[in-house]
């Protein structure tokens, strides 16, 4: 009996946030017939793929004890860079993708350089990066949206392709974090920077790489979004960083670093996606949606912390 109870606590400790997601699904499944369809499930996955990709990048960054506010702007940078190339020649799909990712990776590298080598606090460095990248998107596109007419490029955002891209990235990221040396170093750097440094981890190089990764993933997310909407817009992606941070934190990533999993972030982004979709299906008005979203995010994290605390 005692053992069983302990197991229950262990379960709640480990899977607290998953329980929240399951409860949300049970509620939605019982009140909304639409929610029971596979189409809607695919729909949610497709809608979270863009935010999910940047949330994974955000997880890496937050695990080092940092934060990356540039990702929303980088979505726009990626869209306009790819857009400009595709407007000039709709067949240059590969070039457009590579260029967009490289430019975003470069912005990530600038963030990483200032955080790791100039020791600028991540919040400040990436806040600056956020406005610089947004400005860059406006300057580059002259403020105009690019309308895309490339058949091949639009395939990236169609059907289950965004979901597959998202899940592959999640899988690779999970392997990096749980199986590879780079992943262990990230945990070590975020857990205790000085100790990691003393034990021979090149923390600066690790930080730089993590921010580059964040930029690259934002670039990929931007491409998926541009393909989904068939346009590259300089104003797109505003506020996306907040959903990404929320997903990572809901998923149990510690803002002070050293703790976090890709699986947790996946659950976090699914909670946000289920919320957006569910509130639309329940015809909740646009005004109330924002309040309810905030309350549920707060409640989910409280439940998670509480369930962890109870077994301590």
């Amino acid at each position, binding site marked *: 009996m005692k053992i069983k109870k302990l197991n229950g606590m262990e379960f709640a400790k480990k899977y607290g946030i998953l329980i929240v997601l399951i409860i949300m699904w049970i509620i939605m499944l019982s009140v909304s017939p639409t929610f029971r369809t596979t*189409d809607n499930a695919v729909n949610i996955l497709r809608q979270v793929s863009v935010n999910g990709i940047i949330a994974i990048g955000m997880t890496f960054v937050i695990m080092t004890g940092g934060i990356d506010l540039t990702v929303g702007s980088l979505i726009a940078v990626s869209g306009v860079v790819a857009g400009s190339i595709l407007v000039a020649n709709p067949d240059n799909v590969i070039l457009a993708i590579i260029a967009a990712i490289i430019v975003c990776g470069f912005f990530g590298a600038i963030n990483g350089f200032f955080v790791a080598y*100039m020791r600028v606090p991540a919040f400040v460095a990436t806040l600056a990066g956020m406005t610089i990248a947004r400005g860059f998107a406006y300057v580059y596109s002259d*403020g105009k949206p690019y309308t895309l007419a490339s058949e091949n490029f639009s395939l990236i955002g169609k059907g289950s392709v965004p979901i597959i891209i998202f899940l592959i990235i999640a899988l690779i990221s999970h392997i990096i974090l749980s199986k590879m040396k780079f992943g262990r170093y990230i945990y070590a750097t975020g857990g205790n920077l000085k100790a990691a440094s003393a034990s021979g981890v090149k923390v600066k190089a690790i930080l730089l790489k993590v921010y580059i990764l964040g930029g690259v993933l934002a670039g990929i997310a931007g491409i998926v979004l541009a393909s*989904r909407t068939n*346009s590259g817009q300089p104003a797109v992606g505003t506020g996306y960083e907040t959903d990404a941070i929320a997903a990572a934190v809901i998923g149990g990533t510690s803002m002070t670093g050293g703790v976090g999993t890709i699986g947790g972030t996946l659950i976090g982004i699914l909670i946000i996606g289920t919320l*957006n979709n569910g509130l*639309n*299906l329940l015809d909740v008005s*646009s*005004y109330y949606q924002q309040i309810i979203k905030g309350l549920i995010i707060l409640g989910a994290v409280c439940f998670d912390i509480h369930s962890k605390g109870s077994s301590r």
Partner: protein
Amino acid sequence: MRVKKLLSTIVACTLMLSLVACSSGKNENASQNEGNPTQEASTDNGSEGGVKIGVLMKTMSDTYSNKLGTAIQSYVETQYPDATLYLLDGQADIAKQISQAEDLIAKKVNVIILNPQDADGSAQVLDLAASANIPVVEVNTETTRTDYASFVGSEDVEAGEIMGKYVTEQLGGSGKIAILEGEMGQSAQIKRYEGLENTILKEAGIECVATLSASWSRSTAMSTTEDWLGKYKDLKAIICENDDMAMGALQACESQNREMIIIGTDAIPDALQAIKDGRLSATVLQDAAGQASTSVDVAVKVANGEEVDSRYKVDFQLITSENVDQYINQ
């Protein structure tokens, strides 16, 4: 340690240099701009020509605003080659628009054309301009104030009514519809919705199953429509308060092979092309060129002290596959 110091010095220097480079660039521009009007003024003696027109655009990034801003620029260039134009992009930020108004006042422009970011917030621009004795012509959107020199725009209620009537006709008076609204609280959203209330929402046979805001955004409109398509299998039409959202709704319907009557407003290039290709049902033209030319003409008159009306109405037009060709290359 020494390497680190050296590195920080190099970075600091690079940053400073780039700052200097940026600001010197600005100076050049400014002196150029300042050079022109004085020259013009001396030759023209303050007649039609040498007016300094300041334009505060709420943004240059949504497709319609971009069209309006560009149309203002090219109209001034062709019709008033002697005038100096300062066109500032408020980047959808009310605080930025207000500080840009202060910049224009510092530049001593003769008249300000204001494309308000926010009905209440942008009203401050009127106060600032009034204290500097600079008349303001509002274009496209109105602020909550009425002490402007003139307002040039289209009645957004009319756009809503045109959309409502068109969809009612297409549906033969019965069917289920959904509405995608703009940013809640903006005048275009409130008035276009009012137009729908005056027409289609009064029809007994038509049931509006859902109304949600997609904040003028294509990607949000797309996900909201995807959610609806799963829930409302017999949805017949989606009315969108702008074309960006209509394109998002269209993208969602096409990816699920759903036939849908979709109408937007603004006649942006991709929407026109989609109508020509038979994908999108219709759009309502908010005449950017008409608004641009009228507002510039009125602004120049105001700057020269001539009498103007307090309102100029630029009509909306319905564009369908039948008449799309005459608009597509405008």
